[in-house]
């Protein structure tokens, strides 16, 4: 049985065609490497990058910064002139406390200055462990963890728990460190209007309806609310009891940033949870920096061990950075001792805040923004004069007037292009326990004068 001739011819042609296809060049749909070597060299020659940094005008306000000679204590020497300090966040006056300094000196003699390593590689000192225990005991939580930089505390804590795909509800007036933490976490961010619980509830309800459409995804999506105890940008407090109710109703975890309220609010200075009388276990994570009330450097997070222990392996600012110098940790421990031994300084501080809040009412052209017991107030212009630049210039003249007459103030500084919700320009007024009644009155009357002469 032999195949017919046309079969053999057809198969022969087919085999030759297959061989041709196998050995021919592949072609792509989009011709990418069309350029000759000469054209490539020309492109490389022609390309001009932008300059690395754009030129900064010489009269940029941030280049003419204030230089402080000597320690930034109650009486501060700014640009050569002695003034009363209303600009440093030294709420409890512990910056030049003798006991704190001598504790730091003792630590310096024993440990030197730096720790020369991260916490994992022989950078853990017994003072760090002691400080963590003391902070946990003071705040009445199970565990605390220390960071060596205040900004890095919340900016490392948030991405350790919240990852891509998780949802975070955050207040509009959150500070820049929180914004950076959220950006690093790559989660979905939902902003709600400042202190507006109705807006937050609306967002939570929307999320609930979304969940019902896709219950499998909802079961693994974590949700968080990030709020501050005492907001740096607006000076008011968050309504924590309502937040707790929302937490249990919609099953969201709460992260509380207490940099300004730690050591200020509450009967013993434990912050906003003590102020409202809330059980501290209801808050999942409290983060604060030690650079305000404790007059040291660094920050800490406290909460239950279940939550805090995770940061020891996944908090980037903790694992990959050198630990806090021991002299600063010793100073913080001594400051905590002073806070525990003198619980009436908190009441004194709040009384002074009320005093100046009242005294600053009624300045023509400037309005006071902030709670009456907040030690960091803002003075904003009642009417803006058109552009932010002009507002800033006007406020600078007010500040200069006060500085020339012996009261050191500063404007609140922001990065205008980077903030999500830029607050209006304002003068920052900071109250400390060391300021006397006369000094508070002097500052208030000076501000009235300055407003009169500059704004009218």
């Amino acid at each position, binding site marked *: 049985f032999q195949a017919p001739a046309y079969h053999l011819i057809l198969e022969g042609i087919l085999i030759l065609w297959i061989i041709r296809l196998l050995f021919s060049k592949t072609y792509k749909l989009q011709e990418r490497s069309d350029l000759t070597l000469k054209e490539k060299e020309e*492109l*490389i020659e022609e*390309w001009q*990058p932008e300059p*690395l*940094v754009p*030129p*900064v005008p010489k009269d*940029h306000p*941030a*280049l003419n*910064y204030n*230089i402080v*000679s*000597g*320690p930034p204590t109650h009486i*501060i020497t700014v640009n050569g002139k002695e003034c009363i300090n209303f*600009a*440093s966040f030294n709420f409890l006056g*512990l*910056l030049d406390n003798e006991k704190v*300094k001598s504790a*730091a000196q003792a630590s310096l003699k*024993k440990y*030197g*200055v*730096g*720790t*020369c390593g991260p916490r*994992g*590689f*022989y*950078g*853990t*000192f*017994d003072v760090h*462990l002691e400080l963590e225990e003391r902070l946990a005991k003071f705040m009445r939580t*199970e565990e605390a963890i220390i960071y060596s*930089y*205040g*900004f890095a505390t919340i900016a490392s804590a948030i991405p350790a728990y919240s990852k891509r795909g998780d949802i975070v509800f955050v207040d509009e007036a959150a*500070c*820049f*460190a929180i914004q950076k933490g959220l950006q*690093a976490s790559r989660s979905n961010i939902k902003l709600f209007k400042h202190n507006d619980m109705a807006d937050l509830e609306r967002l939570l309800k929307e999320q609930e309806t979304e969940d019902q459409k896709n219950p499998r995804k909802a*079961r693994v999506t974590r949700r968080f609310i990030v709020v501050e105890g005492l907001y740096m940008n607006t000076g008011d407090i968050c309504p924590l009891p309502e937040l707790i109710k929302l937490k249990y109703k919609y*099953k969201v*975890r709460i992260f509380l940033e207490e940099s300004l309220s730690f050591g200020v609010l509450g009967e013993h200075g434990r912050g906003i949870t003590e102020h409202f009388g809330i059980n501290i276990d209801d808050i999942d994570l409290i983060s604060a*920096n030690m*650079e*305000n009330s404790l*007059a*040291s450097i660094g920050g800490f997070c406290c909460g239950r061990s*279940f939550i805090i222990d*995770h940061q020891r392996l996944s908090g980037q600012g903790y694992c*990959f*950075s050198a630990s806090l*110098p021991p002299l600063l940790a010793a*100073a913080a421990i001594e400051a905590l001792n002073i806070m525990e031994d003198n619980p009436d300084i908190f009441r004194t501080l709040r009384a002074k805040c009320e005093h100046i809040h009242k005294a600053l009412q009624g300045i023509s052209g400037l309005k006071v923004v902030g709670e009456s017991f907040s030690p960091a107030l803002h003075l904003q212009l009642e009417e803006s004069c058109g552009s932010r630049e002009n507002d800033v210039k006007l406020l600078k003249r007010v500040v200069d007037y006060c500085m020339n007459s012996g009261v050191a103030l500063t404007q609140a500084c922001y*990065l205008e292009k980077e903030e999500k919700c830029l607050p209006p320009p304002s003068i920052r007024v900071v109250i400390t326990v060391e300021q006397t009644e006369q000094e508070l009155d002097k500052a208030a009357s000076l501000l009235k004068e300055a407003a009169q002469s500059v704004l009218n």
Partner: protein
Amino acid sequence: QKNGVSNGTLYKKTFIEHFEQAPMYVAVFTFVGFAVGTIFGYLRDFMRAWGLEKRNIAAEREQQKDFVPLYQDFENFYTRNLYMRIRDNWNRPICSVPGPQFDLMERVTDDYNWTFRFTGRTIKNVINMGSYNYLGFAETDVNALKTVTRELEKYGTGVCSTRQEMGTLDKHVELEKLVATFLGVEDAMVFGMGFATNSMNIPALVGKGCLILSDELNHTSLVLGARLSGATIRIFKHNNMQSLEKLLRDAIIYGQPRTHRAWRKIIILVEGIYSMEGSIVRLPEIVSLKNKYKAYLYLDEAHSIGAVGATGRGVVEYFGMSPDDVDVLMGTFTKSFGAAGGYIAGKKGLVDFLRTHSHSAVYATSMCPPVAEQIIRAMKCLMGLDGTTQGLQRVRQLEKNTRYFRRKLHEMGFIIYGNDDSPVVPLLLYMPGKIGAFARRMLEKNIGVVVVGFPATPITESRARFCVSAAHTREMLDKVLNALDELGDYLQLKYSRYSKSSHPELYEETRLELED
């Protein structure tokens, strides 16, 4: 295999780096070790889930049990089952200055590393091969710390304000001038934390529409800064100039992906010395590439400032180049200066821009004055401004110690990575079981070492990392080397096939310059 590059005019001295591959059986056994650990891990998880074994981890609150779980069980598998077994080798607390010798707090565990308790005793005079104390400035000598004590008394410990508001002290101005003089540049700016220096300033320099070319093994702070900036990131193979050149050419020729618009600017992120490999960046080649393709160079000298170079000025001096070749010089003060914080230095325009636009200047507290004073005194000592030659002696001592230590380890037959001149010495262990054994045995011999495994290193390449210091004496180094010799034989760590010890008669060299 060694790769010694004598690239004609670019390199003024020989550049020798080692990255020897281990024999195949080592990789096989490493994988077997991890597999055994994983199987046991599944077994233990199973027993814990069924209540046959006690759960030792902290648990969620009762009231919040119906919330979405905070951690995925699988994410923590490695932590629970593999890391937990050898956890006692990390986070060891010390209670003295981290100098060439320190005191460790004795720590025991009753339940296989789930919890620790302190016995109250201290292990005294443990040789410190783990702290980043390259020039030995971590000291408590009263004379040396005289000025720091004085400044602490004067200024206290806090600053309580940001650089742009009321936080710029005269100490910062003094320090910045000194740093600029030390490095030979126009101006410098200092920040309170080294990690934050990278993560807060890279976003200020680049943004959307820019391209970042970053080395494979860059530190987390550089990666975080690059991610936060919003620019496109492309990675080139570690210290591989062909890979970098290809990326540069492709970037300029083809532009941005999809739209093919030109890139606004291209910035190359490299480190001076890589802390896990011990390799030194190939700076002359990178600078010539950067000049040819008009890119910008950001050099992170965290480990190399003070540690390499004839007078301790870092890799720029090591290669005999001028600081003008690098656009952004960044470094930290934690390692060689025994303090804390970071700096960025360069042209005045760059530093002025950072003063106005850096996130750290506007939102973060400035450096604390006693720490600034420690950096000032260390730098003055290095520059010789305190009237002694102590600074130069320290740099020379570090160089001698590094060469001696590395040469001896090579002779003994260990696999060491990195450049011959880098004080960071990674010694390869490979197998997971040896990580724990090595660190514990060295502690028994009173030597503190640092071991690293996955995920800081590739899974098959766990290592022990030694940091040589100028404060180590010859006796301390000999003690460490003898201990390593013994332990290397006991744990069979001498994997190198090129060790000189196999033919001692052929390598009878007399290195006169090291023996004085």
